[in-house]
């Protein structure tokens, strides 16, 4: 690979050298770097397998942190909305509940009716939310696997067999239109564009439960909203009737 091609492919360094060293005793990452520096004649940036592992961990943590922050924001927004909707629901139904109370239903019975309604709403949301989340996760996982297999195939063509050490992405700009490589890069780009957030965000295991909870909350909100709208509508009919 020439330096120019490597730069076009997004590499910061014009050339990579890979070396596999075996040490007889366990030594630190710093000691490995010091040893390799002492062997090399020209100064070079040295990246060890420990650095790659550490970077991978940082990437995962960063993706998790992004997901958690997104979830917390969504959660706060949903809780505020749900509380508001519940208050509206209680307010809209107060007249009905007081009518039922006057007909002989105790306050504990009223509470039971309200709670049952909420539980049914939550249950419906859990079922639909879980199904949607698993479906979404499956879809994204499939897309990721397609994306990764194309990347692996391309890297193999470029002579890179171990993608955990380094990899190259097919970029449309460096190939002529109509060539097989261009078509390959185009397919890769299209697939990459289907991810509306950084693909790394979809990979951590934390995403699925977060997706389920978020979808459940959102669906609860939707059902509560529809219920509140229906109540407002019927209250209006009664008010119109009174007038």
């Amino acid at each position, binding site marked *: 690979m020439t330096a120019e091609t490597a730069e076009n492919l997004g590499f910061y360094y014009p050339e990579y050298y890979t070396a596999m060293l075996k040490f007889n005793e366990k030594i630190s990452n710093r000691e490995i770097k010091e040893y390799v520096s002492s062997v090399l004649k020209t100064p070079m940036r040295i990246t060890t397998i420990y650095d790659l592992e550490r970077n991978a961990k940082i990437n995962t943590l960063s993706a998790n942190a992004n997901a958690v922050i997104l979830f917390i924001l969504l959660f706060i927004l949903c809780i505020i909305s749900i509380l508001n909707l519940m208050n509206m629901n209680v307010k809209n139904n107060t007249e009905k509940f007081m009518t039922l109370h006057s007909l*002989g*239903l105790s306050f504990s019975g009223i509470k039971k009716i309200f709670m049952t309604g909420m539980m049914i709403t939550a249950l419906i949301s859990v079922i639909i939310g879980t199904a949607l989340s698993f479906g979404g996760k499956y879809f994204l996982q499939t897309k990721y696997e397609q994306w990764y297999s194309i990347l692996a195939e391309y890297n193999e063509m470029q002579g890179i067999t171990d993608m955990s050490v380094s990899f190259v992405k097919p970029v449309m700009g460096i190939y002529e239109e109509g060539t097989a490589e261009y078509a390959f890069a185009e397919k890769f780009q299209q697939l990459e564009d289907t991810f509306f957030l950084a693909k790394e965000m979809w990979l951590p295991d934390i995403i699925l439960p977060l997706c389920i909870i978020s979808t459940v909350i959102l669906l609860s909100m939707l059902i509560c909203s529809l219920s509140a709208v229906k109540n407002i509508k019927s209250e209006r009919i009664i008010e119109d009737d009174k007038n």
Partner: protein
Amino acid sequence: MIRIENLSKTYGTGDAAVHALKDLSLEIKDGEMTAIIGTSGSGKSTLLHALGGLDTELSGKIFYDETNILEMNDTKLSEFRLKNIGFVFQFFNLIPELTAKENILIPLMIGKIKTDEKYFSELVNSLGISERLSHYPSQLSGGQQQRTAIARALINKPKVILCDEPTGNLDKKSGNEVMELLKKLRLEYGQTIVIVTHDPEIASSADRIIHIEDGMIV
């Protein structure tokens, strides 16, 4: 018999205190139709709600025969109300999502009581709503809604019917019809009826009229 002893109700405290009922005592005989009449804010609705056990934060005693309902907890009082008291409201208070029939049967559903089909048919025929049972409240006229509410109040065969301005939201013709129905039903089923109204004409059809002003009988 209903016996009220030294009933008092105060809203608010200190200078802002409003005495809705002041040391009120009263007796209502079984089978009697009593009208409680008074101006707005005189305490007549407070008295009716107290009689129905809807307001229990009062001082004094309310006896139904020998039972003081103010000593009961919410569950027992609700059960007592379910078995012994029927309410008719000014604005009908029907559940808009339920049909007329379902609205009438609510007390039976609450009490998990089996419907007496014969009595139900008799009642809806007497009230002239047998053709309207599958209609929703919004599809009924004001008079029909109030008749449905009366049927709901009577379905449990309660001993006492409490009516809060039952004709207040109806035109004169429908109002008179409702009063005639209440009188007819009392003769048929022998209930004690207490009607709160500010209309002297409506009150005149009762056996007894009680005037309330500033929370006291005058």
